């Protein structure tokens, strides 16, 4: 894994990863979080528990809430964006914050390009501000956000 150093980063720098989350990946994630368990109820923070209506697992469940196909849990998209940022930063970097908005559904097997764009550098703290987004094969950006990362300096 490449280590990124603060001095080597410029506004406008880009980085991207390709991801195609499968139904199996979604199931693994669900089993970890408890999302979508039978009988689980809608949780008002959208973070745990899950709606339990099958929107993450089946076409029928998705249709029941007006979706064309089963979707990834928002937490899973969030986790993918978190990984994008920590991969970009390298093992010596520290993700201070990650802010993600879900604009459209992300479906199983969508071919996703996860992108980082450097928008600002703060020399005093060796911090870097990033715009991040997820683009699908249809050219839509279902997930967008920002991150703040602290990078090591070259010795």
């Amino acid at each position: 894994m490449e280590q990124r150093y603060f001095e080597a980063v410029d506004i406008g720098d880009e980085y991207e990863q390709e991801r195609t989350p499968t139904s199996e990946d979604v199931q693994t994630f669900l089993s970890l979080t408890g999302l979508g368990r039978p009988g689980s109820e809608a949780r008002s923070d959208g973070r745990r528990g899950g709606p339990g209506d099958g929107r993450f697992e089946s076409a029928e469940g998705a249709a029941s809430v007006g979706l064309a196909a089963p979707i990834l849990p928002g937490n899973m998209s969030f986790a993918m964006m978190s990984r994008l940022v920590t991969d970009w930063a390298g093992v010596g970097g520290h993700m201070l914050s990650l802010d993600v908005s879900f604009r459209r559904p992300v479906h199983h097997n969508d071919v996703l390009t996860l992108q980082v764009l450097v928008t600002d550098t703060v020399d005093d703290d060796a911090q870097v501000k990033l715009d991040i987004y997820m683009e699908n094969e249809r050219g839509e950006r279902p997930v967008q956000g920002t991150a703040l990362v602290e990078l090591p300096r070259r010795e």
Partner: protein
Amino acid sequence: MEGYLKWIVARRKKGFRIDGFVLTEHRQFDPAVDYSDLAEQYGVTVLRGAEVETDVGHVLVYGIDERFAKEFDLSNIALPYEDVFSGAREFGGYAVGAHAGRPRIGLAEHVAERGVSLEQVGAVEQLNGGSNDDENGRALKLAEAHGLACVGGSDAHFVNAIGRCLTAFQRPVTSVEALVEELRSGEIHAVRVEETVEAGSAAVREGS
């Protein structure tokens, strides 16, 4: 804010022309906020407006002050649109129908389906950086059909989106008064940032 300004400076270095932008925060307007020092530091014009929500969709208001914010509850998501357009003028400003081609929150659908009057409307946002081509096309049709002036705006919720779509003016705009005057003149047009390379003066709007 500083991130937006740095980004514009970086875009300028790549040959794009972005003279400034109008910060149009959703459903809020605090006249006390002042970015003039930062704006001067980066050589970018920064003006302030607001994006309010009405019964015919979102509306951008420019050149407003505390009187407008006192007259209208900006947290209301169903403000009476004709009052907003006329009120903006009354308080020395100007209102523009935001992302006019978008379903539900743009003017075009309300005109097509409910026949709402455009008597108070002089301009719409025809190019919006967050709208797709079809939506921007619907906005253009509305403007052409009703003789409305067209502005462009980036509708940037993220730094990298600022300046995607802009408004080109005939004369320099470095104050909110000049902005209102130019909007009222109607001698404006919407452009995409790619068109600004070696082109004329342009300003953008930024949302949050």
